[in-house]
């Protein structure tokens, strides 16, 4: 009986919610964390404007963000000319006076620096990969390299913000928030957008929590940070001395008393509040369960490498990402920090590559074995590239590279992305894109397309303007699709 009353109130709430929804152009989010019990999966006829324009190839995304910007020239974009011209000045005809960061704009010379690392071609696709990425080299036929990425920002904070939100200035929703808003969550016990951080040995640039924030979208769409600390999600864990039985009783009392208020005020928000407490309770079970990787078999740890046993590492986070993907979480975002190699690049890039190479490749294989790669999109890449010339002193076995927005490489895999494919080309100096450029907004449009979303139609009206992840541009790169 009581349950019926609750259902009825929830229905009022739902109508209210939908009537609110009709007021906004893009509508509000559905099927989100907000009232998961009420909505479950989005219903066809009530979807925001942008949904289901195409059959989605991806149901979810795992984004392995390499914060600090890995050097494409030492990992994937093989430029033997740089070794031949080692130490010579970057020709002005190539640079064409482009703006530099404040860190090298004072440099009088721009000595070209070839990679210290050996490159080879692998797989049937004959993709070039350096010796820094031995595991990745084994899966080149499963992934797609985009070598012609370019961006507008030349510094970390604006560049990461640009990649994540489509604008260099803070305040807009992160990619995961947009997808949570547009597609909702498939798991009613877990947030739709989960975030993991890890750091390597190297020059680390700080991150701001706003880059996984929901901007002007409702805060239900913000990324929820999962941590390796004893509280995997902030405030999740009950205090010591308070067991599950007590917690349950306490929640029952809260619900009973809230019901009395609901009867008096008839405010559907009270019904929502009651539902949220239930969701919180479920999260208290579902989150620790997904975070506890002790039930993973030995061979999984072997696959992801020795770091995967240590919680908080990139490798362990990759296993977590797969577990969340298995449970239908829409967007899992990992950040691995430490790629900002202005100096001592050879030393630091070895460390960082070691952190990420094996687990990233393992994730692809693992997802494939479980049949999840078909509808999970995996992305690996940083916020910009690095210069072909040396920052600081160039020596036989040491160099550094400054930020370079004009070209860099990311790779993608799964969910309808052409495997064993290399897209785009840079010039022989690795300075400019010469074929098939992919702007950050193009990249974002492409990711959304894979999820079945028309990037021009998933919009949110805020302060009189219609916003979208791709701002006012972005072209889907159809060539990347199978």
């Amino acid at each position, binding site marked *: 009986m009581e349950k019926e009353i609750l259902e009825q109130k929830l229905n009022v709430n739902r109508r209210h919610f939908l009537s609110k929804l009709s007021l906004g152009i893009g509508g509000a989010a559905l099927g989100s964390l907000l009232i998961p019990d009420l909505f479950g999966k989005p219903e066809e006829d009530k979807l925001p404007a942008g949904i289901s324009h195409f059959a989605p190839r991806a149901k979810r995304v795992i984004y392995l963000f390499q914060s600090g910007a890995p050097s494409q020239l030492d990992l994937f974009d093989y430029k033997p000319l740089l070794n031949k011209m080692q130490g010579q000045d970057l020709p002005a005809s190539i640079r064409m006076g482009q703006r530099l*960061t404040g860190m090298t704009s004072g440099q009088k010379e721009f000595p070209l620096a070839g990679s210290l690392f050996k490159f080879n071609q692998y797989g049937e696709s004959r993709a070039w990969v350096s010796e820094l990425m031995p595991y990745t080299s084994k899966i080149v036929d499963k992934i797609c390299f985009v070598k012609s990425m370019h961006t507008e920002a030349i510094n970390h904070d604006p560049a990461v913000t640009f990649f994540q939100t489509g604008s260099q200035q803070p305040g807009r929703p992160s990619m995961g928030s947009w997808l949570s808003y547009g597609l909702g969550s498939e798991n009613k016990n877990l947030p739709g957008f989960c975030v993991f951080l890890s750091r390597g040995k190297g020059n680390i640039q*700080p991150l*701001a929590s706003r880059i996984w924030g929901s901007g002007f979208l409702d805060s239900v769409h913000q990324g929820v940070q999962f941590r390796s600390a004893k509280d995997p*999600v902030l405030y999740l864990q*009950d205090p010591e*001395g308070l067991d599950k039985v007590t917690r349950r*009783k306490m929640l029952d009392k809260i619900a009973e008393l809230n019901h009395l208020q609901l009867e008096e*005020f008839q405010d559907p928000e009270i019904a929502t509040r009651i539902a*949220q407490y239930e969701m919180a309770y479920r999260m208290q079970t579902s989150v620790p369960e997904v975070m506890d990787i002790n039930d993973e078999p030995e061979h999984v740890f072997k696959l992801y490498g020795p770091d995967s046993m240590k919680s908080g590492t990139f490798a362990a986070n990759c296993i977590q990402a797969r577990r969340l993907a298995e449970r239908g979480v829409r967007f899992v975002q990992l950040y691995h920090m430490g790629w900002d190699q202005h100096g001592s690049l050879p030393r630091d890039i070895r460390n960082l590559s070691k952190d990420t190479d094996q687990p990233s490749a393992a994730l692809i294989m693992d997802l494939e074995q479980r049949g999840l790669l078909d509808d999970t999109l995996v992305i690996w890449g940083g916020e910009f590239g690095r210069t072909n010339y040396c920052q600081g002193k160039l020596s036989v076995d040491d160099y550094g590279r400054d930020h370079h927005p004009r070209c860099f490489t990311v790779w993608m895999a799964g969910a309808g992305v052409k495997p064993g494919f290399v897209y785009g080309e840079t010039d022989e100096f690795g300075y400019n894109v010469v074929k098939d450029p992919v702007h950050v907004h193009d990249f974002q449009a492409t990711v959304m397309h894979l999820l079945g979303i028309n990037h021009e139609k998933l919009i949110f009206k805020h302060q009189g303007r219609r916003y979208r992840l791709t701002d006012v541009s972005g072209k889907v790169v159809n060539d990347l699709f199978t």
Partner: protein
Amino acid sequence: MKRISFVIAGLVATTLLIVSCFHKKDESAQTSGLIDFNFDIKPILSDRCFKCHGPDPNNRKADLRLDIEANAYAALKNNPGVHAILPGKPDQSELVKRVLSTDPLYMMPPPESNLSLNDAEKYLLKKWVEQGGKYKKHWAFLLPQKVKPPAIDSDDGVVINEIDQFIIERVLRKGLKQSKEADKERLIRRISFDLTGLPPSVAMTEKFLKDNRPNAYEIIVDSLLASPAYGERWTNYWLDVARYGDTHGYQDDLPRVMWPWRDWVIKAFNENMPYDKFVTWQLAGDLLPDANKEQLLASAFNRNHKISQEGGIVDEEYRVEYVADRANTFGKAFMSISMECSRCHDHKYDPITQKDYFSLYAFFNNLKETGFVLNLRTPEPYMRISKRDLEGELKFLNANKVIKSEKDTILQMVMKEVPGIRKSYVLNRGAYDAHGEEVTPDVPNSILALKPGLPRNRLGLSQWLFDENNPLTARVMVNRIWQEIFGRGLVATSEDFGNQGSIPSHPELLDWLAVDFRENGWDMKKLVRKMVLSATYRQSSVASPELREIDPDNIYLSHSSRYRMNSEMIRDNALATSGLLNKEIGGPSVKPYQPEGIWEDVSVGDKSGYRGETSYIIDTGNLVYRRSLYTYWRRTVPPPAMITFDNPMKEICEVRRTRTSTPLQALVLLNDPQIMEASRVLAAKLLVNNKGNSRQTITDAFRLITSRTAKANEVDMLEQFYTAELVKYQQDLKSANAVLKTGHHKIDSRINAANAAAMMLTIQTIYNLDETISRS
């Protein structure tokens, strides 16, 4: 060409109803049949047409603009003989023909725009042209007029002041009824939170309940308005507007000192500084004749923007960003106009050109400042605050902990105008290095021209803002105060009064209050007082499901609104009711409890602090119990519990918070050590007071926390829980002791651990009630 036959009458009737809800507008179109341009038509034109046929020439198609009457009536340049609008003749108006068309090559808006019109909107456009297609200036740019409030029959509701007359008139027209006054317990809780952000004390409630004089409520209102907590509550709001933060906000995110400015804001609200003076000092305190240190300090408002310390940035790029931030903040904070839209191009919806934008920008461009600031340096320009200032002009500052001797100083960023320091230009596409036409400081003339003789600096700009012919300033602030008192602005989009913003629900009331505000010398307390004394404010918030169906957002105010309080109020309620609250006013921001490791996750550097603070060190003593507005705001890692409850990030000016309901909020209230500690401390205190009587303790706690006397069945429910937990903890004292170990406050050893723990959880249950965190 295929043309659709026109919508049948029945459909029109139903869709019209939808439209009227859709626009939350007057029923005029239905009742009188006369279509109002500002309310019925412009929202459609602006939202669906102006992007290509509006103020922005770069995107304008067919050289047609529909935002200007003459242009819309004129023959089309590339198609003479054809008119977009031919007044009175919809069949010959190209606009009507095209919006009714279904031919993808002919119809408007075109399919590729991803915009469309529904049948009701099409009908309205046609009807409007039929009725003469008359234009009116945008409502917000017309001067507000004080019309006589409608007369209300005494049978139709209680009228205390003019607000009620306007509100009841609309309530009646909607077929609704004014609600009865809220019961006294709920009313005093509501007014106490709305005016001071704190719950009423039990003594105050007792006094009010017993006071049967007709002005009992008025007495309470006046005592709350006079309380120093009033200034804190409104400062809390103003910090969102001013984008206040305790750190610089980019990359390493180093600390900055801005709290002396925040202390000044508290003082200004508490002294009831008139709004014109309040704003003028903040915009241009440094430019006042013989500016004193207090006025200089107030000008720090303009320096609350973020500042980059990222090595490698282009200095000028960021300097331009700061100037733009000041101009954007000015537009949003004082005019509710999204100026930033005009930074890259002429505004697509409002009559603000790119040149207007950079002319406004030019007012804020004359500082000796840099884009890049070295770590640990105070960005220039700044003022020095010394011991002597604390004994003189700045004695309101709570700086004794920082300035102990003559040697100590505080460096506080402020404004210092250096006339002629640099020229200003239109920046093409808004880019810092793409200089276009040179501009000089000027205001958007489409709103109001700058009076000749006014200085072309920020002081002149302030005077323009408070010119009696400025249509925006008073309306904007009246609406914000209304929003904070009633939960929703008369203009719901309190950040946007432009063409894309919402239309006022009660335009005459908004205008009446705006003119009244100005005529009363911009007296903020007087305005607040009028609002809270109204019968409209005092209504009960009980509403039937039927009523909620008719007016789900309570636009017509036939009852009081019920909504979740902000994060500061929720936490301050726990501090105040448990007796932990440290009422000290002002001073450096403090670091209350926060989960471990959050800063460490994203920060870099070492203990030197050169790359910013690497770890969050919780304060000691009663600093952790300060009001939440003093919580240290690190912009890149803001306090997570506050963000969970929808605090803005404080990166840009925000004037309205969203209100969501999420499971993460439940987790905060269940497991935040501050809520647990408050429960523990209150449990111990009341158990001692009541000599261990659990029922009385629950009754007292309920009253303290919710400001109302619990019903017997409510106490029963809680007592059942308490009793069961007591038995359990008596058998497991170890767990009882563990659960009590939360927070810095000493554990009261006079009480048995099992009783203390069971009661702690019982009280925490009360802290988690929807009622506790709601304004009702």
